[in-house]
């Protein structure tokens, strides 16, 4: 291996050779044993091989960095039109299409929403994303509550308050009103 030292600066065996010299006491200077001058150099700081090894590693790391950054930026998704445009108000349906005691899921911009016509004739609208783990909730006509089918969370249909199951918070409310016999839902 030693003859490859001059051609190959990143040879791991070279280090072993320099490290092993301490055991080789009292011999004449030869090609296998570094001279006392080299020994001195090695003690003081970095020798040529170490320098090149470090330079190689640093260059490789810089190169990796300038390669990985553009790849990260490439993979970073651009803002889509959908997330940029914000819906503030929406016609859901005619009031006659939403009789008392029923609810309706619909799309409100980028998220699902729910409008409920309760038995007392009031309209209530909420963001239909369960506050537990993000499933879409629905209005149950038989139980007259807002229900999440994923883990059984329940909310009050009038206030959106979490009343049973794992949800930690009430559903965020939207504003629901009737204008010209149309159900209009808008941000609060």
């Amino acid at each position, binding site marked *: 291996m030693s003859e490859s030292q001059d051609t*190959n600066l990143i040879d791991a065996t070279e280090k072993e050779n320099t490290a092993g010299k301490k055991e080789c006491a009292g011999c004449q200077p030869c090609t296998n044993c570094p001279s006392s001058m080299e020994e001195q150099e090695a003690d003081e700081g970095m020798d040529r091989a170490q320098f090149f090894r470090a330079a190689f590693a640093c260059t490789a790391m810089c190169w990796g960095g300038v390669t990985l950054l*553009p790849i990260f*930026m*490439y993979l*970073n998704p*651009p803002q889509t039109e959908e997330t940029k445009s914000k819906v503030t108000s929406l016609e859901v349906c005619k009031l006659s299409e939403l009789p008392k005691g029923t609810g309706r899921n619909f799309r409100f911009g980028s998220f699902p929403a729910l409008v409920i016509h309760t038995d007392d004739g009031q309209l209530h609208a909420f963001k239909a994303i369960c506050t537990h783990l993000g499933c879409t909730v629905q209005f149950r006509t038989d139980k007259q509550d807002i229900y999440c089918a994923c883990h059984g969370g329940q909310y009050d249909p009038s206030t959106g308050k979490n009343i049973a199951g794992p949800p930690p918070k009430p559903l965020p409310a939207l504003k629901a009103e009737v204008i010209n016999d149309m159900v209009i839902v808008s941000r609060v």
Partner: protein
Amino acid sequence: MVSHPVSPQKFAARLNAFLRERLPLEELQALAEKKKVPLHKHSLWYYLGGIAGMLLGVQIVTGLLLMVYYVPEITSAHASILKINTQINFGWFVRSLHSWGANLMILALFVHLFSTYFMKAYRKPRELTWWTGLALMGICLGFGFTGYLLPWDDVSFFATKIGLDVASKVPFAGNLIAYMLRGGDAVSQATISRFFVIHVAILPILLIGLLGGHLLMVQVHNISEPNSFKNLEPAEKTYEKFFPTFFLKDILVWILCLNALFGLTMLSPWSLGPEADPFAPAPIGIKPEWYFLAPFQFLKMMPAMVGPIEGELVGLVLMSLVAVGFVLVPTFDSGASTARSRAATWFGIVVVISFAVLSIWGVLS
């Protein structure tokens, strides 16, 4: 946090010991060091395979990145490439790298193929290396052909149409092959889907398998020595170790080639034509990629009929004979006969010159 901090050297030594106890690292190192590279005036050509391999790496990385945003659907394909080119950070760069890289890789492969051909590296015991290499060349041309359609611009649409029409001229199975590849009678959504699957799944699997075999053969037989070197006295022959000496030089050459690729990409980003319209006339001056230009020009100069046979078919048969010549050359020129060796060399020279002349003619016409 750590009460006894471990120095990086100690950590490296421990990691080294850990791996050595669990993996056959000594054997692998011995295997890597076994391979030696002959030093002679033609040694330069030994870099070409490595260059092609490096460019393959670029193709894999950029290809994976493109797949993140590309949509293989007829109404979205062109728009998705347009989005990559205009809206995604470094998107134009990744796409141009993929296109330029593909062209440089084909170029490197052609030089690799002909340099090994003229150095007679196909002779026993390296026939399998030669044949796997030819198959890899075919696969890479397949990559070029299938990938060309995916952006779904006007040129890619007609290039695919022409290519598949040529394929349909193959006797007996031609029509079926073209029909299966096209996924019907016309280049359409079905063609995009099929070409996409071939480009990103089928060809990569074949390529990885064959390339593994190709490299294994090189490892088993060591690097081929041209006759001028083989006939030297043992004392006059000089070698260098493949690992690490030649490998480090390889890395240097790769960096130079990468810089050339980056330079081309930045100075001349790959363009994207208008979206394909299957009912619009072919654009004036439409030509295939440069590596298909020679066969394109050859078929163009064929007369409509040669005797009772269709000219196109005669051209195809002649070109197939060239391919067959390359496949059979190890059995024809085994090194025993000087006359055969010379014939093989002349065959290669004629093919290279015809390829060059036809390509240049194709560019100019």
